[in-house]
């Protein structure tokens, strides 16, 4: 099949695109806002400032605009938030590898909480299965199997290692972003402004943990499935062509709640808290348990600690 046919199959040639762009531009410049909506081109989103450059008034206007938009689209009430970090908080996460049974309840709780696309399927957490015997000789992440299926969990002779965003202090993904669309928040969460992501996927290439995922096509999410509790740089529904990843349930943790994956874990292997608070669970883990981080040799300084 020739190159030209390929292009046509994928949705038109360059000429078609230019024609469409010209009509779109003309329509937006001349017609009423209703016409712009009909074209699914949102001028306000197009001109939207970067999250960190928005004034409080602009942010409030954005919240109201998004609430209107989602209520119209999904037919239920939404609570859109831009909650800021809590003072003197640096989040850290702990996971007890000796207790994880690989049941993947965290994976699916995450999908439901954070509005991931159901088809094509996106999972922010990947659970790797290892042979216990092989792990004794040393963990080779390439030997991990993310597609395991067993009648019951845990399978005998296996161990499990769930992997999601490590929220690195020296995050390579934020360093390579050409538009500054991803950055580390003051409370340690590596966040994404989905409206400023241009889909170049440099961050995916830079991340050594495979934590970032790309929306290759329009995500599908039904009105029943969508979680109406939304943070703008958190679980806001994504569009085609943007990168997404774990953000430690920003919409929950900035109100003091635990992340969804932690609450879903039946064995209590997941621990979350403020690393600056000496009374927190995560500090107890760091002070009393044997902890390790993945790929420490890369110097990314993850804030996700495995312990046993």
């Amino acid at each position: 099949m020739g190159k030209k046919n390929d292009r046509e199959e994928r949705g038109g040639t360059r000429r078609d695109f230019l024609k469409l762009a010209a009509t779109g531009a003309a329509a937006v410049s001349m017609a009423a806002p209703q016409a712009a909506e009909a074209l699914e081109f949102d001028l306000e989103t197009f001109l939207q400032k970067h999250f960190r450059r928005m004034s409080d008034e602009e942010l409030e206007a954005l919240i109201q605009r998004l609430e209107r938009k989602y209520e119209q689209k999904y037919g239920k009430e939404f609570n859109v938030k831009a909650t800021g970090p809590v003072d003197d908080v640096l989040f850290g996460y702990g996971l007890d590898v000796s207790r994880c049974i690989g049941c993947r309840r965290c994976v699916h709780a995450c999908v439901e909480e954070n509005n991931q696309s159901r088809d094509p399927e996106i999972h922010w957490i990947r659970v790797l299965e290892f042979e216990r015997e092989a792990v004794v000789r040393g963990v080779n992440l390439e030997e991990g199997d993310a597609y395991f299926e067993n009648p019951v969990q845990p399978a005998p002779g296996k161990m499990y290692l769930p992997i999601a965003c490590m929220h690195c202090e020296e995050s390579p993904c934020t360093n390579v972003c050409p538009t500054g669309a991803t950055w580390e928040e003051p409370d340690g969460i590596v966040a994404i402004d989905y409206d400023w992501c241009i889909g170049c996927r440099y961050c995916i290439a830079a991340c050594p943990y495979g934590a970032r995922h790309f929306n290759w096509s329009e995500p599908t999410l039904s009105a029943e499935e969508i979680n109406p509790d939304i943070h703008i740089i958190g679980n806001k529904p994504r569009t085609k062509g943007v990168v997404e990843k774990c953000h430690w349930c920003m919409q929950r943790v900035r109100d003091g709640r635990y992340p969804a994956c932690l609450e879903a874990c039946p064995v209590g292997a997941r621990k979350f808290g403020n690393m600056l608070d000496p009374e927190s669970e995560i500090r107890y883990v760091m002070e009393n348990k044997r902890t390790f981080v993945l790929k420490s040799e890369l110097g990314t300084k993850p804030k996700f600690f495995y312990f046993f």
Partner: protein
Amino acid sequence: MTAKEQGEGSAGEYHPPSNQLGTWVVLGAAFLMVLSLFSVRMSQDPNSSRDYPSRTLPPGPPASLMAEPEMDEDYWPCSDCHEGEVTNFKVREMTEEHENRAEFSHGTNWCLDCHDAKDRDSLHLSNGELVSFDETWRLCTQCHSNKLADWRAGVHGKQTGHWRGKKEYWSCIACHDPHNITPAFKPIEGKPRPRCPDELTVDGNQWNKDMCRSISKGHATHEARDPEQGEKEDGHGQEE
């Protein structure tokens, strides 16, 4: 340059006003361009941060204990059957009642090591102090004291609710069966696996088993995947 020279100079040369205006327009435009470049640079600076207002969260009430799992109505309350009977202290095999406890394997313990013979609806510590069925952790940690510190710190076992705010601790017997501790946590059914990369194609949804297997080394069970697996209820009683 004196004022006289200046006056002479300006008188000698003649600039049409339109030209002067043009120069200023060009200069002004250049200045604006530099400004706009500067602002673009600022907007891309990864170190520029949003000025978040100061926020605190209230510490919330002290941590509470999750309600213990529901008692088996066929057996609870114990006093229904055992009230007023003469206690048989002999360690023996159960044949008539509590047969499901016949495989009791918690060390060398016997029923009355934990259950109180006089107050049938209570438990007792080793020093004889009565303990209600809502505080079983006090009983367990008499021996498993090494787990107590971890549990108190919120690191052993499960906690739900808030990392700052109302926190609920799950008790020992929410996960461990006190009458049969092996295995410590009963195996449960796993949730569906992610689709293999080649399954993600929409066309015909045909996927190459070999490719999937090469990704997931050593697993040949993928053809047995039930598409309705995701809708199945998990029979795990510990979820909220």
